[in-house]
């Protein structure tokens, strides 16, 4: 029996194994750990030590209905878990506000000059956005990573991270993140319910850079349950300049919309 073909085959196999091992090691170096990605995403969204303010315009589209518009000015101080939202539009709700201190959220109606408690999970007005969308979140603390794969989103190569909720404090049981590879930025997020149903998709196609931090400037939220229902969030007048302490008070809400 001629043994040469066997020898050749073994040599080839060895070479392939070596090449594979090399390729894997190269890839391992280029592949950041999913925890690192999450940490970086958390870091991008958080303004620890700094105040943040901006004007958000939320346009919600529902089939067969006129688009609804909510415009609000937001003040955030993540170090103290504070935020203040002032409604600018629609005109009839102008001056209404939400103030958060720790886990308490007050709603203020200037037309009756009364306050009421409302919760963080409550929908902001009738839009697809939630109050919690405007507060600092920590993906790393709230979720565990179940997988990380590669893919492309439009023309961008992305990491696809599949996350499972650690606590029931979060609004969604499972989320899938599409993170741009060449520069860590979240491009798309899918939220799933406990039974695995896609509930909403959020796209972050426009960013601005603010003191070295990337901030989404336009966000599209698609309600996957009620087809055709979407909200676009546009952010302007972003600032990380210090905000006076008096802003995060009920008195400010009362004064500002006299």
């Amino acid at each position: 029996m001629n043994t040469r073909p066997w020898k050749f085959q073994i040599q080839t196999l060895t070479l392939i194994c070596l090449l594979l091992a090399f390729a894997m090691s190269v890839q391992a170096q280029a592949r950041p750990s999913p925890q690192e990605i999450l940490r970086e995403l958390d870091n991008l969204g958080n303004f620890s030590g700094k105040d943040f303010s901006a004007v958000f315009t939320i346009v919600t589209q529902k089939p067969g209905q006129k688009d609804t518009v909510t415009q609000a000015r937001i003040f955030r101080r993540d170090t103290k878990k504070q935020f203040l939202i002032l409604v600018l539009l629609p005109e009839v709700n102008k001056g209404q506000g939400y103030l958060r201190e720790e886990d308490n959220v007050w709603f203020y109606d200037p037309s009756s000059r009364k306050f009421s408690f409302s919760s963080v999970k409550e929908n902001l007005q009738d839009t697809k956005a939630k109050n919690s969308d405007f507060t600092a979140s920590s993906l790393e603390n709230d979720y565990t990573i179940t997988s990380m794969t590669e893919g492309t989103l439009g023309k961008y190569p992305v990491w696809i991270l599949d996350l499972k909720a650690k606590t029931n404090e979060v609004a969604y049981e499972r989320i899938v993140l599409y993170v741009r590879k060449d520069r860590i930025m979240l491009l798309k997020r899918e939220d799933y319910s406990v039974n695995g149903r896609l509930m909403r998709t959020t796209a972050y196609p426009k960013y601005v850079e603010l003191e070295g931090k990337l901030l989404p400037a336009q966000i599209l939220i698609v309600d996957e349950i009620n087809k055709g229902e979407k909200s676009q969030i546009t952010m302007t007048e972003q600032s990380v300049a210090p905000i006076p302490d008096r802003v995060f008070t009920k008195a400010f809400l009362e004064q500002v919309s006299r």
Partner: protein
Amino acid sequence: MPVIFRLAFRNIREHASKSLIIGFLLAFGALILVVGNAFIDASAMGIRKTFSDNYTGDIFISGVSEEGAVSLFGVTSPGGLAETPLIPEFDKTIAILQSNPHIKAFSPLATGFAQVTRGDLPRPENAETSSSSPQDRFFFLFGVDAATYWQLFDSIEIAAGRRLQPGDRGLMVRESQLKKISAWLGKTLVPGDSLLVQGFSSAGFRLRELPIIGVFRQKEEGTTPEQLAYIDIESLRVMAGLTVGANENIQLQPEATNMLAVEDTDALFGDDLVMSEAVPAQSPDFNTITEQLSRKPEERTPIADEGAWQFIVVKTDNPARTRKTIVELNTSFAREGLPLVAGDWQKAAGPYGQSVDVVRIVFAAAIIILSIVAVIIITNTFVISVLERTSEIGTMRAIGAGKGFIRAMFAAEAVTLATFSALIGAVLGVLVTMALRALRIEATNQFFVILFGGQYMSPFVTLGNFAGAVLIMVLVGFIAHLYPVMLALRIQPVRAMQEE
């Protein structure tokens, strides 16, 4: 008497035991049908009466929504809070109602949702938190026209305070719910006290402090949602966003809406991502903000949209004629080009009225299943009975009886037996119904209130029900005999005669 029926009677007597079994089954079937339908009829009538007496009226008029069916509870849409359409051209609509001679009275209405909140008061030490659920503080608000509403509906008793009167601003809360709210707030609420109520609608939130004008009890509990509260129409309009200027047109920059037309979110990532260095602006200018938010004093309070009504509930002079009146009204609305629909109490009750239908459908399904089982058992008994008579059939056919004669003979036997049995069963059914009615059994829960059509079990038998039950059981008897006769006729007369 034709020979065929003489033979039928003879056969019934000859095969007494089998005839008794079949007869018993048919009679039992008729009895069940009569009693069952007596309950369904009582339920339908009772529920209609209770709903129309309590809050739906005989006829319910609403605008049209593309999102789904409109009821007193708003629009039943998959998306949740869809806007309830208003009655367009209210005066014209009223004129149509006034011109219909069968309309006795009517009252306009608007509804909304709200929740009692604690405001910014600190949480009281003595307040109950564990036993209170958010539903206990939820209100389903009926914004009524106090001048006409109470003339239409005399369904409540005042436990404290008084009814809403024209010009009042405030709430009427159910006694049982007020107890729960009191427990949650940690203080006993009485008429004159105020509640901080947060209204929510597709237009957003609205917060108002409203006095409790009255505390009521439903005369007949179980027909309205426990959270139903009456409110003056002006306050309701503010709560439900039916305010002047609520539908303003807002002009926005194109970049605030440019992504909404996108069908596939992935298509947004075709271009290079726009990244621009945001100017690290100075601290927001609070003078500008205050200016942005400032309003003229007259603009501060939302002005209720006068004449904004969502529904009209109507009482007719003759509820039995309601269907015809509905058709007349809908014709008038169409002629005048008004996007309005008139419907019956079930349209008004919406999801709440459908639960009644579910109970009735379940009951009807049970009767259908019972009928199928009866047909199978009767067919089986018939098969045995007919096969026992194979030699007799053979002999008859040998002496010249055609297949048609044999079929007719068995059909006559089946129909005769079924008619007598069904009649006996139906009469027994009437007696059972009368006995049940005489017992006046009280409904202990919501399910039985629906099944009984009211607080007490009061089934009744109509002529249609009686005749229907007899006819159905005769049909069941007839269908059940077809298969065994077909079997018997397949056997050759010579072989049939040889069988024992």
